[in-house]
C-alpha cells in the first residue's frame, strides 16, 4: 500500500497536468472518468494537486526524519561514548527541546520566517525530532557500551570502528527504524496541521493540510475536495504504523 502511495507521489506529478493551472470555467466540476477527483474552486485538477501534495509531504518528511535521525543518533552515541561534560552538554540541550512543546518550536520557526518557506519548517521539525533519537540511542548505547562484550572487544584491541559496526549498530538499527517510521507520521501530520491552520506553507502550493482547509467552504457542494487529502493522510499514517509493527516483531 505504501508502495502504491509512493508510486502515486512519484509518477503522478510527471504525467498529470500542472496543479496550478486554473480553468475557471470548470469551477467545482464533479468527479468524472477523465478527472477522477473533480476540480476545485479555481478549476484546478484535484488529482494533480493531490499527487504534488503527497510527493511534497513524503519527500519533506523523509528529509526531516533523515536529518533528525543522523543528528540524534550520532549525538546519542557521542554522549554515551564520551560521557562527562559532552554528555552533560548534549543532555542539557536535548532537555531544552523536550521542555518546549514540539509544535511550539515549529510555530516559532515558521513565524521567524514570515514567508512560510519550506526551509524554516524543515529546520524546525528536524530540531524537534532529533531529541527522541538522541534519548533512545543514548540510553541503549550506554547499556551496550557497558556490556562485557564491549569490554572484551577493548581487551582484544578491536578499535572503535568495530564497536560501532558490530556492537552498537546491530542493537540500534531496529530502534531507529521504528522511530523513523513513527517520525515520518509525526512529520507529515505536523506539516499538514500547520498548513491547515495556515501558518505553514502558503497557497497556491499544493499541500495536504492546505487542501483540506481550502476544501472546507465547499464541503456541501464539492466534498471530494477535502475528503481526498484526508484519505491520503489517513492511508499514509496507517501504512507507516503498520510498517512499524513489522519492524518490532522481526
Amino acid at each position: 500500500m505504501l508502495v502504491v502511495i509512493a508510486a502515486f507521489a512519484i509518477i503522478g506529478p510527471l504525467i498529470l497536468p500542472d496543479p496550478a493551472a486554473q480553468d475557471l470555467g470548470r469551477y467545482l466540476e464533479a468527479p468524472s472518468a477523465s478527472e477522477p477527483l473533480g476540480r476545485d474552486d479555481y478549476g484546478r485538477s484535484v488529482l494533480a494537486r493531490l499527487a504534488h501534495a503527497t510527493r511534497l509531504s513524503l519527500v519533506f518528511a523523509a528529509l526531516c526524519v533523515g536529518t533528525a535521525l543522523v543528528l540524534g543518533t550520532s549525538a546519542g552515541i557521542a554522549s554515551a561514548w564520551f560521557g562527562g561534560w559532552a554528555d552533560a552538554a548534549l543532555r542539557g540541550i536535548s532537555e531544552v527541546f523536550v521542555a518546549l512543546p514540539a509544535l511550539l518550536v515549529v510555530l516559532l520557526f515558521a513565524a521567524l520566517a514570515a514567508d512560510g518557506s519550506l526551509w524554516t519548517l524543515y529546520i524546525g521539525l528536524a530540531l524537534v525530532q532529533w531529541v527522541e533519537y538522541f534519548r533512545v540511542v543514548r540510553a541503549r548505547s550506554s547499556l551496550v557500551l557497558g556490556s562485557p562484550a564491549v569490554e572484551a572487544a577493548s581487551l582484544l584491541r578491536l578499535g572503535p570502528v568495530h564497536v560501532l559496526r558490530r556492537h552498537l549498530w546491530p542493537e540500534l538499527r531496529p530502534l531507529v527504524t521504528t522511530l523513523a517510521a513513527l517520525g515520518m507520521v509525526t512529520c507529515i501530520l505536523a506539516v499538514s496541521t500547520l498548513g491547515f491552520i495556515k501558518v505553514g506553507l502558503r497557497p497556491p502550493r499544493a499541500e495536504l493540510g492546505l487542501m483540506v482547509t481550502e476544501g472546507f467552504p465547499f464541503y456541501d457542494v464539492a466534498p471530494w475536495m477535502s475528503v481526498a487529502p484526508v484519505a491520503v493522510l489517513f492511508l499514509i499514517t496507517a501504512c507507516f504504523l503498520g510498517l512499524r509493527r513489522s519492524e518490532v516483531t522481526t
Partner: protein
Amino acid sequence: MSLLELRDLAVRHGDTALVDVADISVKSGQALTIVGESGSGKSLLAHAVMGTITTGLAVEGTMSLDGVHYDLADRANRKHHWGRELALLPQEPALALDPTMRVRDQVAEGAPGFRSRRKAALRRAEDTLGRLNLGHAARAWPHTLSGGMAQRVAYAAATIGGARVLIVDEPTKGLDRDSLDQLADLLTEHVATGGLLITITHDLHLARKLGGELLVMRDAIIVERGPADRVLTTPEHDYTRRLVAAEPSRWQYEWLASPLADATADPAAEPLVAAEKLAKSYGDTELFRDISLEIRPGERWALAGPSGVGKTTLGNLLLRLGAPDEGTVRHHNAVAGGRLQKLYQDPALSFPARVRLTDAMRDIVRRHGVPPGRVESLMATLGLPESLLHRLPGQVSGGELQRLAIVRAMLLEPALVFADEATSRLDLLTQERTMDCLMSELTRTGCALLLVTHDRELATAVADHHLRLDQAVHPVAVP
C-alpha cells in the same frame, strides 16, 4: 508416611523423547536427588510434575500422591495443590523474586489464608524468615540480597504454604559453598520433618550432603539409581563414573597444580602485572584494602572467596578495567596490545549478540593479522565443530561458547588470561572439559592465569598461588 509415585512419565517434543522414566517413588524422610548434565531432561521432569511445563511439549504418565492419582497430561489438575502440597523452588531465585515487593510481603503471599487474614500471614512470614536467619532482611528489597539470601527467601516463599512435596530445581547455580551448605541444611530439615523432597542438581556435593536416593539421568533416561553414598563412591554405570571423576578434586591432568613441584614461573622474571596497596570501596562498603601482588609470566593465581567480596572487582582492577581508590597497578610491556585477555562468567554476554560468530572471529583475525587457519586449528584442538561459527552466540550452548571464548582469547597469544568464574555456570562434565581446554592452551603457550572462583576445589586443582578474600577486609596471600 506419605508417598509420591510417578509412573511412565514421558515428555516429548514431536518424536524426540526429552524425558522417559518408568517409575520414580519418593518417600517421606528420604531425599530423592536427580543428577545429570545440562540437557539431560532433569528440569523438564520437575516441571512435568508441577504442571508448569511449556505447552509445546507433550506430557504422559500418572502421578499418585497418598493414593490419589493424577494424569500428568492434564496440566491444571494439580494447580490447587501449588503451595499447599506441591512447591517448586525455581532456578535463579534472584530472578524469581518480584523486584517491586519487599521480602516479607512477597513471602506472606504464599501463607495460607493470606487473603482473609493478612496480619497473621505477615506475622507468619516474619517467623519463617526469622527461622532462616533472615529476620533483618524482612523489609529489604530483593535486589539488595546476596545470591544465598535470595535463595533462602525463595525457599521461605515456596514452603510457607506448608507444601509437603518440595521440588528444588538447580539450586546451586552461582552459589558459593557457605550458602550452599545452608541450603542443604534447610532441605535436610524439610526431609527430617516428614516432607518429600526432589532435588535436581548437577552439583555432586549437594547430592552427597542430602543423601537418600540418587538417580543419574542422561539423554532423557535414568542410567543408574541407588542410595546416594553407594552411587557416588562405587558407581556402576560408565557415565556415572565419568560424572564422579569430573569433580575438580578428582581431576587427573598433566596441567594440575602440584604442591611438590616448583611453580613454572621464574621468580626473578619481571612481573606482568604488579599491584601495590590496592583499595576499593563501593559507597560506604569497603571491599578490600592493602592488597599487593605480582603476577609473573606463567604463574597461576586463584582469587577465591564467597560471592560479593570483590573478587571480580579486584581482577578488573588488575586488568585496569576499573580504577582503584588507592594504590597503583603497573603493567609490563609484555601485556601491551591485547595480550591481556578475560573470560567471562556468561560467555553469551561477551560476544556481540547480533553478529554471527564467523564475523566476530574474522574481525579479530583481520585486525591483528592472525595467520589464516589459526581459528580452525584452535577450534579443532578444543574439539569444536567449525559449523558452530555460522550461528549467533545465543544459539550455542554455554560450554561450547566458553570454549569459543577461549579460542578468541588465544588468537592474540596472551601473556595473562583472567578467567572470571568462567566455569561456575557449567555442569561438572562441561566444566572439566572447558578447564582442560583452557589449561592445556595456557600450558602450551606459557601464559599466566588469574582465576576468580568461589569453588575452593577448582582453585586448589588449578592454581599455584592463592589469594583468599573474605568478608573481613584483610586478605590472606598463600604463596
